């Protein structure tokens, strides 16, 4: 047998498109180079082991994972409702759910404060009944993160559910499976690449969340100060620390996005 050789027949791409693509790429790459250029390499270990950074890492890890979990537990059922049940106001609800994606997060934080603050429409009765006040606690960070991150999960999962043709689900129904069983055992496994992508997106969005958190939860080292908040505060006092934390956020986010790239961009 002769070995077949594969000839590539890729054409030279048009110069104008290449130029525009390079400019676009530079827009992403150059700021990262700037960050690397300003990184205080010799102080890096000291900075990363400082109390402020270690506390911020702890808060960020806890809150981003907790909110990713909440996004799944609450967001997946919402995505199912939006994709599978026809009800009045569904389009409006869908728009509302995606609103945090386009809204300045600060606006979201203010809205959360008006809702769940101790003088908020829900927060005040909650305070009166239980004495529990959400703002300035780690729970507020988790709520703020979830508020901004959940749309990414809902949009991803709902899109995946809507693009399922429904025939496998119908087949499962003919076998006697209830809607819940069909969702859990058929639809969910079928959209698992999208679900994974949605979780990663939501988690990454929580990790980088700043505006809603500072507005709703405030900023206090060891309680509510996550990495992005620490960056912002450090910018005012210790720029080396700000750059070091920024670098950490960039590296972690980048590693996660690259690690999930295959499952995400090729399979979804």
């Amino acid at each position, binding site marked *: 047998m002769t070995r077949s050789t594969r000839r590539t027949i890729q054409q030279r791409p048009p110069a104008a498109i290449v130029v525009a693509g390079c400019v676009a790429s530079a827009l992403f790459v150059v700021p990262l180079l700037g960050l690397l250029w300003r990184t205080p390499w010799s102080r890096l270990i000291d900075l990363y082991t400082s109390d402020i950074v270690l506390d911020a890492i702890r808060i960020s890890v806890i809150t981003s994972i907790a909110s990713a979990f909440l996004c799944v537990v609450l967001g997946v059922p919402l995505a199912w409702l939006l994709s599978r049940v026809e009800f009045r106001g569904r389009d409006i609800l869908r728009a509302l759910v995606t609103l945090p994606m386009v809204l300045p997060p600060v606006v979201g934080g203010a809205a959360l404060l008006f809702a769940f603050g101790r003088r908020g429409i829900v927060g005040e009765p909650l305070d009166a009944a239980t004495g529990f006040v959400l703002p300035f606690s780690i729970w507020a960070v988790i709520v703020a993160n979830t508020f901004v991150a959940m749309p990414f999960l809902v949009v991803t999962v709902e899109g995946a559910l809507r693009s399922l043709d429904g025939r496998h689900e*119908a087949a499962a129904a003919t076998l006697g499976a209830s809607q819940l069983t069909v969702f859990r055992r058929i639809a969910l496994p079928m959209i698992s690449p999208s679900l994974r992508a949605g979780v990663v997106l939501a988690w990454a969005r929580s990790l980088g969340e700043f505006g809603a958190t500072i507005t709703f939860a405030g900023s206090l080292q060891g309680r509510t100060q996550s990495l992005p908040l620490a960056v912002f505060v450090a910018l005012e006092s210790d720029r080396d620390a700000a750059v070091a934390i920024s670098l950490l956020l960039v590296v972690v986010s980048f590693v996660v996005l690259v690690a999930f790239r295959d499952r995400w961009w090729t399979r979804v």
Partner: protein
Amino acid sequence: MTLDASFTARRSEVFDVSIDIDVARGTTTALLGPNGSGKSTIVSVLAGLLAIEDGHIRIGDKLVDAPSEGVFVPVAQRHVGVVFQDYLLFDKMNVLENIAFGPRAAGRVASDAKEIAQGLMEQFGLDSLADLHPPQLSGGQAQQVALARALAISPSLLLLDEPLAALDVATRSRFRRSLAEHLDSFDGARLLITHDAADAFLLAEQIVVLEHGRVIQAGSAEEIRRHPATPYVAALSGRNLLQATNTGGVLAVDGSDQLLQTWDTAASGAVLVSIPPSAIAVYTEQPHGSPRNTWATTVSAIEPLGDTSRVYVGAPLELSADLTPGAIASLRLEPGSSVWVSIKATEIDVSQA
């Protein structure tokens, strides 16, 4: 009657289906029709995925859909086993889990469901495939798993939607025969939906021919073959079916001394031979070349069928061939004409009888 369905259903503004079918327990009825004739709408309706507009559907002694009485049993409670056209196996589960899915969904404990699935796999000879996932199966294996999965819920009605369409021609005959066996072992009502006349004539006792959402003819295979109600039915039923014995590619046709040659040696011994009427060429003189599968005979009858006419030839083999009226005129064919017929060996479909 195990299936008693008489209804009108609507898929869209412009397309509705209105039929009346009865299927007795332990028998197979084929619903034969071209694409767009309303077959898939009927599958949806009977499975409970689409509600009827008018009429009633009774499965066993249970009324499952009757708008006038406000009855509609949802899909999950119908107990209609469906073998879908592309099987729709669950890729994320292995074969065992696929088959056990129905019993599990019905609330049986895992061990019971597994036992039921294992029993079926044994019956279907699928034991060795238990741990495989659907993408690893061949088309024929997937079809068997789909059938076993549908039977695992002990359905009162078995719906087979084009169960052989996804298989290639080479394996279709083999699986048609195994399907026939499995159908025989299921004692509920069987409804086979197909566009392939061979499936209908070989697997079903009763045939309902569907066109544009309406039944145009119903009856036994023999009745339909003898008296096709429309050119479509005639075209479907014109396929020449012969019983024969295959010995190394040489077919000895029962009740005739004419031998036919075939390339298909997979099915040997007693076989069923199928020859489409369009595969038979008719000449007024002995054709050159291909000496095999060519013989002299006489025209016994000519029937016009719309665009074509069907020419029947007599001894040594009674066959029908489809010719255009132009060809018939230029050959000056009429009943009693002496002709030569020729059949390409590749056009002869052989399946195990």
